[in-house]
């Protein structure tokens, strides 16, 4: 059966991609941010997983408001990076894994999750940036991806509990998938930020740092928070952090916090990451 090798939580701020594109990763504003990902990249290279499940939200690039899936799953063999309006980025296509994706979709529906199933779709910075941060810029990505989109833009967004439940199921799906492949699960988005309204520019460093420790040691706290709590604590767009709960829900109760990193601001966002491993 396939094996879960660990969970990653990471920001996916588009400015991170833009900074990489213009070669600004060593500038004084950005160096401390990128330096914190060096150990994470090494961890990923050592683990060398076959499949990355990436949980993220679209930002008006693959979906518009004409149709807003609460959850969507990619079942394609290939995903192109979308041009978000600033021109195409120089990134290789992402290889999918249709067999694993369809297996996941079957299990979701059997267990009363009802996702939108996407056979032809592009992926925006929500998936691109975490992949670049963890795998760098190889000619071809060393893993296949299974994209899971979560609506965090138009209300009602799913509850933190629902994201968690999907993670619990994802764990069962990985561990029942007839394959000897290894899987990393990446929950993305956040940390605190708010782009709109008079509280724009809101960053809550204290809550962000507590979250990075708490998602490892005390995830119940974040599972039990309401959507409104997320918005109030982390800002309107910081509510993206509910997506890390899919990752956390698929890990054991007790985990090792292998790496954590925080830097603020990245553009207008508190940014950072964790790596978690089960204790076995």
């Amino acid at each position, binding site marked *: 059966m396939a094996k879960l090798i660990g969970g990653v939580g990471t920001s996916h701020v588009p*400015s991170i991609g833009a900074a990489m594109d213009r070669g600004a990763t060593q500038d004084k504003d950005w160096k401390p941010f990128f330096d914190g990902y060096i150990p994470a990249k090494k961890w990923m290279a050592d683990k060398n997983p076959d499949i990355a499940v990436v949980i993220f939200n679209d*930002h*008006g*690039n693959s979906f*518009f*408001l*004409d149709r807003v899936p609460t959850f969507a799953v990619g079942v394609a063999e290939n995903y192109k990076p*979308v*041009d*978000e*309006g*600033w021109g195409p980025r120089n990134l290789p296509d992402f290889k999918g894994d249709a067999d694993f994706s369809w297996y996941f979709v079957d299990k979701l529906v059997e267990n009363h999750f009802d996702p939108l199933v996407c056979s032809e779709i592009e992926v925006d910075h929500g998936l691109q940036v975490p992949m670049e941060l963890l795998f760098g810029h190889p000619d071809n990505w060393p893993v296949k991806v299974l994209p899971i989109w979560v609506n965090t*833009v*138009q*209300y009602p967004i799913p509850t933190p509990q629902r994201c968690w439940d999907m993670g619990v199921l994802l764990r069962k799906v990985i561990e029942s998938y007839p394959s000897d492949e290894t899987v990393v699960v990446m929950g993305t988005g956040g940390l605190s930020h*708010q*782009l*709109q*309204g*008079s*509280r*724009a*520019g*809101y*960053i809550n*460093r204290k809550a962000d740092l507590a979250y990075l420790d708490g998602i490892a040691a005390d995830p119940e706290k974040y599972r039990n928070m309401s959507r*409104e709590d997320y*918005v*109030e604590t982390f*800002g*309107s*767009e910081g509510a993206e952090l509910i997506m890390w709960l899919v990752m956390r829900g698929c890990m054991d109760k007790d985990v090792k916090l292998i790496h954590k990193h925080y830097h*603020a*601001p990245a*553009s*207008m966002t508190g940014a950072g990451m964790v790596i978690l491993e089960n204790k076995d």
Partner: protein
Amino acid sequence: MADTQDTIPVTPLFDRPRALRGYKMNKMANGLGNPANREAFVADEAAYIDRYGLSDEEKTAVMQRDWHEMVRLGGNLFFILKITAVDFIPITQVGAAQASMDHDDFLRDRLGKNI
């Protein structure tokens, strides 16, 4: 239809009233993800906007790049931000406008940068 009832101060949630109200403006702005639409927008902004049936109030807010007003009228940053792919305005400038702050003050006081 009930008005938006924000329970968290100064934080406009993109709920049903806003999604409905801002639909046309967001659709117009989101269209700018397409290069042909960006060209059309640059060539004749008013004509491009008119394709989407915006009200005069909405059209004026867009043409004046009044970010605060656009959000008041139901604009959502993820969509209207695509206007900055034409104008090349940094997002912090849009943020400062949302907060009604001078850009440097915004960078220092909200984002904690050393300015």
